[in-house]
């Protein structure tokens, strides 16, 4: 049975490699996945300029097949003004490389724990306080079958069908995106991406703000509201799509992931949500690891074209130092770094071309040598789709866990453990990996076992000292 659907423009999932989000204005409803290809995890290094290849090739090329030093060294850096600093230190032994990788891998694990935790905290806090997101108010067009059926079998069947529809929509959109990318329809992708960010930053923020104000019974007049939303949205667009302080860009990405996750939590029916979470981790695994998987093809195409990672919908944990962007005097002490969010390909011309590949060596106090400074720029990137689905899992646990906090906390810890393991695998394999499967599997296991085993146990053993509530 088809439920009433809400008209919201769909947001497709952006590509993993360079990640532009495609916004499809479907006539029907849409909380399309802004997470599509985004659900993969890779090291932060984009392909470095070719002439700076020798020696050190750490976990720089996280995407797809890393070619270890096979690229032409004849190619000049000038023709390829890559914004990332070249970090060649020839002669470094590979064993030291591994150790440093693991050591800094730990640091980057923590750098990802914080934003993932923040996103989940925002989602859980909203779910627990704002009633709007737990009210059932229709379903998306992608999950047309209702779950208000008399029998359990029918409900299960409906949720599986909903999942099939949702996943096939995702697959179709991903393939569409790969095709667009292969045929270099950058303007189209670019435009789609901008439309989707506009939608998230303005419309969904407006709705969210309205609901929060309603919950706390705070009155706000329309002029103030529009001024607030306008400022928030405009700064967000600038930060995400152009230049801005890294921390601000990260904050905006976290916020839009949280908003998207809240929409999913509201509009996905119960059982469908859990089945979709399971199915999407399987899809993620297949799409990123199989040789003919769409995400892997996307990553490899980007690799071949030597294009930088798409900035707008991947969360990046590290600063990126540019060649030619921050002209530093290597001899000055305590040189200032301008951390900025990497911009998109078509605005490279604005930077001009460096006359020669400059290796930035800011002398930060306290570091033993230049090698460590170059290590610092290596971050890890996590797709926004991963943020979204992690938050959906924890949010659903918070929404349906019968008011119980233990379930929510258990899922939260499970996701962090999964993320940790995934990052460990990333440090070992050094190529793009799906970030969803391990975390979501742990999360699902912990959710169902805590909700069905731990909670009744704790309720029973604790009931003798329960506080009486009026």
């Amino acid at each position, binding site marked *: 049975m088809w439920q009433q659907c809400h008209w919201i423009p769909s947001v497709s999932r952006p590509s993993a490699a360079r990640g532009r989000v495609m916004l499809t204005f479907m006539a029907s409803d849409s909380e399309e996945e802004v997470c599509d290809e985004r659900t993969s995890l890779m090291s932060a290094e984009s392909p470095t300029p070719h002439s700076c290849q020798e020696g050190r090739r750490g976990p720089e090329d996280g995407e797809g097949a890393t070619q270890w030093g096979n690229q032409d060294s004849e190619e000049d850096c000038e023709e390829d003004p890559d914004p990332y600093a070249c970090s060649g230190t020839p002669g470094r032994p590979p064993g030291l490389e591994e150790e*440093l990788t693991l050591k800094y891998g*730990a640091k980057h694990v923590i750098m990802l724990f914080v934003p993932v935790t923040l996103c989940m905290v925002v989602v859980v806090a909203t779910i627990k306080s704002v009633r709007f997101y737990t009210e059932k108010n229709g379903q998306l067009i992608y999950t047309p079958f209702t779950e208000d059926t008399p029998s359990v079998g029918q409900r299960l069947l409906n949720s599986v069908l909903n999942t099939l529809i949702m996943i096939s929509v995702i697959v179709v959109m991903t393939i569409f995106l790969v095709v667009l990318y292969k045929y270099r329809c950058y303007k189209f992708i670019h435009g789609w991406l901008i439309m989707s960010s506009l939608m998230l930053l303005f419309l969904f923020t407006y709705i969210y703000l309205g609901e929060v104000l309603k919950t706390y019974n705070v009155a706000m007049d329309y002029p103030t509201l529009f001024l607030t939303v306008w400022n928030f949205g405009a700064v967000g667009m600038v930060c995400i799509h152009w230049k801005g302080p890294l921390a601000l860009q990260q904050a905006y990405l976290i916020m839009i992931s949280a908003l998207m996750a809240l929409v999913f939590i509201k509009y996905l029916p119960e059982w469908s949500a859990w089945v979709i979470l399971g199915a999407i981790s399987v899809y993620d695994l297949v799409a990123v690891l199989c040789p003919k998987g769409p995400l892997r093809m996307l990553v490899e195409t980007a690799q071949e074209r030597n294009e930088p990672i798409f900035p707008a919908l991947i969360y990046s944990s590290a600063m990126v130092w540019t060649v030619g962007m921050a002209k530093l005097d290597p001899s000055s002490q305590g040189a200032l770094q301008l951390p900025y969010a990497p911009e998109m390909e078509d605005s490279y011309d604005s930077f001009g071309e460096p006359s020669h590949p400059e290796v930035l060596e800011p002398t930060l106090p306290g570091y033993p040598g230049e090698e460590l400074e170059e290590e610092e720029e290596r971050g890890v990137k996590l797709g926004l789709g991963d943020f979204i689905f992690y938050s959906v899992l924890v949010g659903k646990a918070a929404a349906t866990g019968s008011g119980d906090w233990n379930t929510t*906390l258990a899922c939260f810890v499970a996701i962090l453990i999964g993320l*940790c393991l995934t990052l460990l695998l990333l440090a070992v394999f050094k190529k793009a990996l799906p970030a969803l499967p391990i975390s979501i599997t742990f999360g699902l296991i912990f959710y169902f076992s805590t909700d069905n085993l731990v909670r009744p146990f*704790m309720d029973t053993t*604790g009931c003798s000292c329960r506080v*009486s*509530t009026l």
Partner: protein
Amino acid sequence: MTAAVFFGCTFIAFGPALALYIFTIASDPLRVIFLIAGKASEGLKSINPDDTVPSMRLLAYVSGLGFGIMSGVFSFVNTLSDSLGPGTVGIHGDSPQFFLNSAFMTLVVVLLHVFWGVVFFDGCEKKKWYIILIVFLTHLLVSAQTFLSPHYGINLLSAYIIMVLMGIWAFFVAGGSCRSLKLCLLCQDKDFLLFNQRSR
């Protein structure tokens, strides 16, 4: 039930754990990973010599703290969330100090887990099985005591005595001595001061 009760109980129960986390763990990402995942990877042990290799004792401490925090949170967070809502404590004749007692009990459980972790790892390493047995029995004892719940006095008091004894034992197991304690308290411990200077 007021916000004061909520915040007060939260800080009583989790304050020391939070302080331990901030001062000893948050500065080193590896330790945070051990805290959450609770296990060491062999590969990490062979890492660069110029950084402090996480030793077994550190691992024991961190994993003990991790277990303690999880246990404390799981047992107390539902009570805390109830304390924010409306209600009357002990309207059916139970003790009106329910929240406070629960908070102190949670605190003692958190600290006990830290000490148990240190002692347990030491027992495993030195293969002294009686240590493991003692840890297990005291754990059972403290948990079983909570069934005395309306009689908070005995429950809390014995739990705290066990905690202090365990703390002293863990201190000596971890390599402390009366002398080093005295030096530390009088701020004369040169190694400690130097270490702090270096890590800044």
